[in-house]
């Protein structure tokens, strides 16, 4: 290689690796503002009073009524805010834990087991990922009514206990993260398949399991359509309670948006602690998918 070409190569590399200019940062700042503005807006309106939204000389400084507005949300008996919060926590936690456990178990079997029908069953799992589950609401509702489960948390938890995506995700991860030798060694030491799963596969799969849990938790927390059909005002999850709040307060957006902020705080806290993992998980899933 001549000196000239290695020089131009170095220069090309430097050109690609150089720090981006103000234009790129400017663009990202605009996106950042767009991401954050709705939160600020909610606080601005949620800290005002019934007239704030339609006030033509709207000040951009928040008012002092946020606590009072939040209290009217919490005290509203038809909204059932605390019950909704507890329910959302229960549903999302149980669903996330269940999806993680059953997906890791099945993922371990698919990635490291040898059994007939393995390939066909895995293709079946991948195929079902594309089937829109929301379309099953009619028979699900018929089934839940037959068992008398409508209005109870079971109606929302049971359909979420497993996902095809989870099995696919864990299979992919375990296949590349857990060396076959480790499984063999554990077998030679006399461990059963379940012991091998529990002591070897589960710890090895922890990063992917954490991401799957996080993702499933958020999906369960934000889900509205099915909980809205299966539950009622007396026993709601947070999105269902927010819908009630809107139907209750005609045009009083200061209270509605105070409620919106209250309902968003738990996931914001989660985002502060686990946002980095969430970013990583989404990006890792994308490469595989």
């Amino acid at each position, binding site marked *: 290689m001549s000196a000239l070409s290695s020089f131009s190569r170095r220069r090309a590399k430097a050109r690609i*690796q150089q720090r981006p200019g103000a234009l790129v940062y400017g663009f990202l700042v605009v996106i950042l503002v767009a991401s954050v503005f*709705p939160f600020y807006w909610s606080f601005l309106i949620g800290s005002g009073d019934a007239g704030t939204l339609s006030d033509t000389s709207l000040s951009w400084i928040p008012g002092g009524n946020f606590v009072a507005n939040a209290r009217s949300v919490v005290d509203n008996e038809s909204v059932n805010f605390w019950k909704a919060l507890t329910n959302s926590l229960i549903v999302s936690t149980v669903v996330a834990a269940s999806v993680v456990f059953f997906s890791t178990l099945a993922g371990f079997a698919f990635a490291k087991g040898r059994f007939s029908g393995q390939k066909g069953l895995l293709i079946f799992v991948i195929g*079902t990922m594309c089937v829109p589950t929301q379309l099953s609401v*009619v028979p699900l509702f018929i089934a839940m009514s037959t068992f008398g489960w409508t209005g109870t948390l079971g109606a929302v938890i049971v359909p979420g206990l497993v996902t095809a995506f989870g099995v696919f995700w864990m299979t992919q991860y375990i296949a590349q993260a857990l060396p076959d030798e480790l499984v063999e060694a554990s077998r030679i030491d006399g461990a059963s398949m379940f012991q091998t799963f529990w002591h070897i596969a589960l710890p090895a799969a922890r990063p992917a399991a954490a991401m799957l849990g996080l993702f499933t938790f958020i999906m369960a927390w*934000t889900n509205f359509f099915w909980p809205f059909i299966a539950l009622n005002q007396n026993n709601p999850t947070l999105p269902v309670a927010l819908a009630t709040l*809107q139907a209750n307060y005609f045009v009083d957006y200061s209270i509605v948006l105070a409620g919106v902020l209250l309902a968003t705080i738990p996931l914001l806290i989660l985002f502060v602690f686990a946002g980095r993992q969430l970013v990583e998980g*989404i990006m890792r899933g*994308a490469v595989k998918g």
Partner: protein
Amino acid sequence: MTTSTIVVKDLSQRGFGFRENLGRWDVKYSPYVFISPFFILFVLVGLFPLLYTGWVSLHAWDLLGGQGKWTGLDNFTFVLHQRQFWVALRNTLSIFLVSAIPQLVVATAIAAALDTNLRNKTFWRMSVLLPFVVMPVAVTLIFGSMFGERYGLVNRTLAEVGFGPIRWHTDPLASHVAIATMVNFRWTGYNALILLAGMQAIPRDLYEAAAIDGATWLRRFFVITIPQLRPTIIFVIITATIGGLQIFDEPRLYDQNGLGGEDQQWMTMTIYLYKLGWTQLNFGRAAAVAWLLFIVIVAIGLINLAITRRIATSEGPAT
């Protein structure tokens, strides 16, 4: 190599004791036990309901009376002869297009910006994902308060720069734009991260070679990045199609009645399904709409796939 395998096999077949037998059974059948919770639950809550939707759609079936007589394809012909069905289809497709196209463009731009050699990479990546943790119901209530026709923030801002008020809750296309904004607020950053992951998987030598040849950033982007990104773009479009065509939360809470507007301006397929099933109590017809929606999703998915293939191959060298 071969010999060692045989030795191992011999060893494993020598013992015929209870423990060895148990061990072999364990290896052979445990995988089935491990995958069975998923399959049993999936068949019960995923597959069975989907097929049963088909069964319900072929019967007269109401919420209170339960299963009625077999009616063949009557529910389908009834629904297909309703103006509301076609309006719902139009709205669903319109909202999907108005949201998906700008979203994909902006998400690609964000991904390209994030793919540069930024300071504080993690901060910027997290910042675009922040809206994802807000539930769609909350997003709708927040944006709904901005899109008021008389006093809304958006119309007031437009008035300041000299644009007449837009009738966000009256004009169909305007309502679709408002709803698309809500969808895009939540999903643009999420999809940008997926596209970013795709961009980072592109071999850096390609860019280097192009830079040696003197290609500008913009040229490198269109000649290398976009064609190389094709599988990721297809993935994003397919998931956006499946999710987008089922849209319910945003149009449901866009006004207080939740049935898609007085003249069905923003009544989507899923809203129509809900209306048939839970306000008219006609499950047979609701199930028929569910199946029709499923067919629409598959059809649009295939069309998208064909278009994306075409666009991505016509631009730049084949990959």
